[in-house]
Each structure stands twice: as structure tokens, then as C-alpha cells.
């Protein structure tokens, strides 16, 4: 590197760069403020109880709501969790307790790879695995897609939560004569439960907002779901479909639903953030 120049000039550069860097930080926070601001304002204005109590009105008519979408999101999240939690948590336990070998390393690596796969691609996979054999869009397909997205998050946070359990706890349990698996299930996992729960919450926050993988799995609907084997609406999906449509009232509903979705997602994130901070303090004491 080449430097030089008078000290005064170098100090000036240092000050200028400090200012620039601070400005850049402001720039990174600006979009957050803008997006949240508009969602809150536009969403609050258009919010009414009908949104969560009524079904969509016939196309072109104003009014109605998205009750089916809210129910749909609930169903899909529950379905995805039912699949992803056992797989993710157990894999996380395996990685944390038995994972000092090459197989485990490969597994970790692949889990990380899975996090990076675009969600639309995961949608395609769920399409080929579920929609094609079933010859129909379904809540099941949507749940499978969301589960695939959820698994890596849950796995990783479970592993990290369990790794943070002090070895002394494990040793104490083993010294008392507990078998390895019993130690894990009765002692280690409960100790790490806080971390696991926050991981689950993060996973839910993520999939609740996912749209792309649902486009051709759950597909969306304007009616109540007809069971797990038929198409089902979901809040982010509905927001997308309304936003790109030409109807003014649909836009209003989209903003209002966005506000509710935002509250859910950010709410979960904030809870997690606060929980991990107090948890950390407890561990240090």
C-alpha cells in the first residue's frame, strides 16, 4: 500500500472517512425506517375487523377480508412445524452430542447449503414431490415446502443451544449413572430448551412471511380451505396477489394485512432478541 502526504492531510482524510462511514450506516437504517413507516401508516388507515373475520368478496367488489388467508397461514405454519421440528431438533441434537466426525461436518455443511437455496427452488421441489403425485395444489405441498425451509434454521439453533449447555451438567448426569441418551433427553435438552424455543420462533417468523414457495404448492384460494389436500390461502400470498392486481380496495387490504404480518414477524424477532439477551446474562451468573 502507498501512503504518505502530510500529517494534516492524512488526519483530514481520516475525519472525512469517519463521517462517510457514519453516513453509510445511516443509509443502511433508512430503508427500514421507510418500509416500516409506510406499512404502519398505510396499513393502519386501511385496517378493520373485516380483514380477519370475513372471506374475500367477489372479484371486483370492494370489502370483504382475508380470514381464510390468516387461517391458512396458521395451518401451513403448524403443518411445517410438525414436519420440521422433529427433523430439525433431532438433527441438531445429533450434531451437538455426537457430531465430532466427518459425517457430521458434511451434515452441517449441507444444512448451511440448504439455507442458501432460493425459496422458489424449494417450491419447485415441493411441487415435484407432492403436487405432481397428488395432481392438485394442496396445503400439504405448501407445508412440505415451508418445512424444508424451516429445517436448517431449527437444526442450527438447536445445535448451538445445546452446545452452550455447560459440560459440567452432562458430566453430573453421567456421574449419576444415566445412560447417554437419557442424559441428553432428560438433562441436556431441558437445559438448552430456551435456545431451542427461540430457534423455533425464528423459524416460524421466517416461514410465516414466505411467499415464493407457496405460489405453486399451496396456490392460494378465495375460500375456506377444504382440508389439507386442497389449495389454501396464506397471508403473504394474498398480499402478493392483491398488490399486483388493479383493484384499489385490494391494495388497501394488502397494506392492512402487511401491517399485521409485520407485527407478527417483527414481534417474534424482538421477543427472541430480548430473550437471548436475558438468557445470556443468566448464563454468566
Amino acid at each position: 500500500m502507498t501512503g504518505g502526504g502530510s500529517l494534516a492531510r492524512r488526519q483530514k482524510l481520516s475525519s472525512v472517512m469517519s463521517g462517510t462511514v457514519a453516513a453509510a450506516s445511516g443509509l443502511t437504517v433508512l430503508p427500514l425506517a421507510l418500509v416500516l413507516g409506510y406499512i404502519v401508516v398505510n396499513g393502519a388507515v386501511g385496517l378493520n375487523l373485516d380483514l380477519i373475520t370475513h372471506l374475500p368478496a367477489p372479484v371486483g367488489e370492494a370489502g370483504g377480508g382475508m380470514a381464510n388467508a390468516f387461517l391458512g397461514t396458521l395451518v401451513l405454519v403448524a403443518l411445517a412445524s410438525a414436519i420440521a421440528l422433529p427433523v430439525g431438533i433431532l438433527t441438531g441434537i445429533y450434531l451437538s452430542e455426537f457430531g465430532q466426525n466427518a459425517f457430521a461436518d458434511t451434515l452441517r455443511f449441507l444444512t448451511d447449503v440448504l439455507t442458501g437455496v432460493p425459496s422458489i427452488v424449494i417450491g419447485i421441489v415441493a411441487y415435484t414431490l407432492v403436487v405432481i403425485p397428488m395432481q392438485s395444489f394442496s396445503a400439504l405441498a405448501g407445508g412440505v415446502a415451508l418445512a424444508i425451509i424451516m429445517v436448517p434454521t431449527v437444526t442450527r439453533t438447536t445445535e448451538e443451544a445445546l452446545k452452550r449447555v455447560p459440560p459440567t451438567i452432562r458430566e453430573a448426569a453421567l456421574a449419576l449413572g444415566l445412560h447417554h441418551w437419557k442424559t441428553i433427553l432428560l438433562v441436556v435438552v431441558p437445559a438448552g430448551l430456551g435456545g431451542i424455543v427461540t430457534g423455533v420462533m425464528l423459524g416460524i417468523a421466517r416461514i410465516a412471511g414466505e411467499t415464493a414457495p407457496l405460489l405453486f404448492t399451496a396456490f392460494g384460494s378465495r375460500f375456506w380451505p377444504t382440508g389439507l389436500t386442497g389449495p389454501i390461502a396464506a397471508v403473504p400470498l394474498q398480499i402478493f396477489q392483491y398488490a399486483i392486481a388493479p383493484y384499489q380496495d385490494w391494495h388497501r387490504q394488502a397494506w392492512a394485512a402487511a401491517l399485521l404480518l409485520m407485527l407478527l414477524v417483527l414481534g417474534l424477532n424482538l421477543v427472541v432478541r430480548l430473550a437471548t439477551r436475558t438468557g445470556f446474562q443468566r448464563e454468566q451468573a
Partner: protein
Amino acid sequence: MITMYERLVQDVAPQIPAKTPAVDGSGLLVRNLSAYYGEFRAIQDISLDVQEHRVTALIGPSGCGKSTLIRCFNRLHEVARGARVEGQVRLQGIDLYGPGIDPVAVRRMVGMVFQRPNPFPTMSIFDNVAAGLRLNGLAGGSQLALTVESCLRQAALWDEVKDKLRQPAMALSGGQQQRLCIARALAVDPAVILMDEPCSALDPISTLRIEDLISELKQQLTIVIVTHNMQQAARVSDYTAFMMANESRAGEIVEFGATRTIFTNPSDSRTESYITGRFG
């Protein structure tokens, strides 16, 4: 009764020249120096005459503020958040903490070698030594190469690296890396070099080589060395300051004088207790 330490020291202590009056040369005149981390005072009211062209050692138990003290000499202490300094440190008559004095300029005049060798890992041996020169725009082109060579020679490293100057600095051994750091510090032509336990991470042979180096270097500049190793202080330094933390955990100078005196005939009982190993 002569203790083991006294015998050891008598055998290897360097010849102390007659006490010279404090001159405003490259010595550091420290007056009423206190350093704080926020509200906590780490060193209290330190006054000291660091003689130029001599090696001054700072010894004392862990946590007594030795490192804090020397970091005040090159204004590195204040870089930490909430840290501040009160008092004076004069170099060549100029108070380094005076108004209008840029700490960046101070740090060129007062260099530092750290406890663990820390060459810049992304740079070659040559680039490490040249870093300070390039940074400050002190030399370029062929002058740069000449200065780098000169500094490596002064650090007694030239013969070992002259054929591999472009190789990464991390390829060197621990002792070599530390000598590289010394060469790097020398490159900007400082008046004083501070050494914070420079050999504590090194093997005995590397340690002795660096001690020899220190004895040679003092002909050109002033050296202040913090050390835990009392034999090292006795071997290498001309003057020694013994520090201890007082009741409020602030470091103070208990005793300061010629090394030979400190080790054979200390005035303060605490000094004697420390050097005879009654506490550490």
C-alpha cells in the same frame, strides 16, 4: 548476607555510568502522570526520569499498571473508550500531551514492540518493515529498500531473511517475528522504543538474542522495557523502576534507581520483598 539474587546480579550487571543529570534529550520526563479507564484510576501520580540512551526497566507484580504506564508514553492508552490521561510526559522539552500535539505524530517518535509478536500477516517481511515508512511517506523507491535493509540489520535479522524478503512474515519463527517487529518499529526512526514484555512469548535462546539486541540498540535510542522476569531486568537494564498497586488499586512507583542498586541494596522494604520473591 548476600542472597542468591544479589550474587546473580553482581555477576552479570552491566557497568552503570556515573549518574547523569536529567537532560532534555531523548529521555522521557514524566511528571504527575495519572491514567484512567473511565472512573477507575489505573496509575497514580507517576513521576520518573527516563534517561536517554539507556534501558529503563519497569518491574512489579501483575496488575500494577506497568503496561498502562508505558502506553501513556506513546499515547496509546487514550485509544480505549473512556480512557484518559492527566499529567505531563516531556520528550525533547515538548509535553507530548500538550495542546495542539497530534497523538499520531507522538506515536512516530515513540515506538512500541508488543508482548506477542504481531507482524502483519497479509504482508511480506519486506512490507512489514516498510509499512511505517510507506504510511508516513518517509521513503520511496530505492531509499525504501535501503532503509528496510538497515533496520533488519539493526534488528539482527538481515542475514536470516535477506533471501526471502518477499515471503510472508508469518513464515518466520516466533523469535524472528519479534525481531521483525523490532525492525518495523525502528523503521520510522523513533527517539524512544517501548517494549511490553517482548520476550515473554519466546523461547530462552530467542530471548537472549533479543536482550543482546536491546543492549546494542540503546546506543541510538532510549528504551523502556516492561518485564516480569527479574533476571532479565537485571541483565539488560541500566535503571529500574519498581511499581506496585496501592490500596485504591492504582499503580505507583515505589522505587526508582540504578538497576544495580535496586537489586543489591533497595531502599524500600517492598522492593526487597518483591525481588527476593516473597510475592509476585
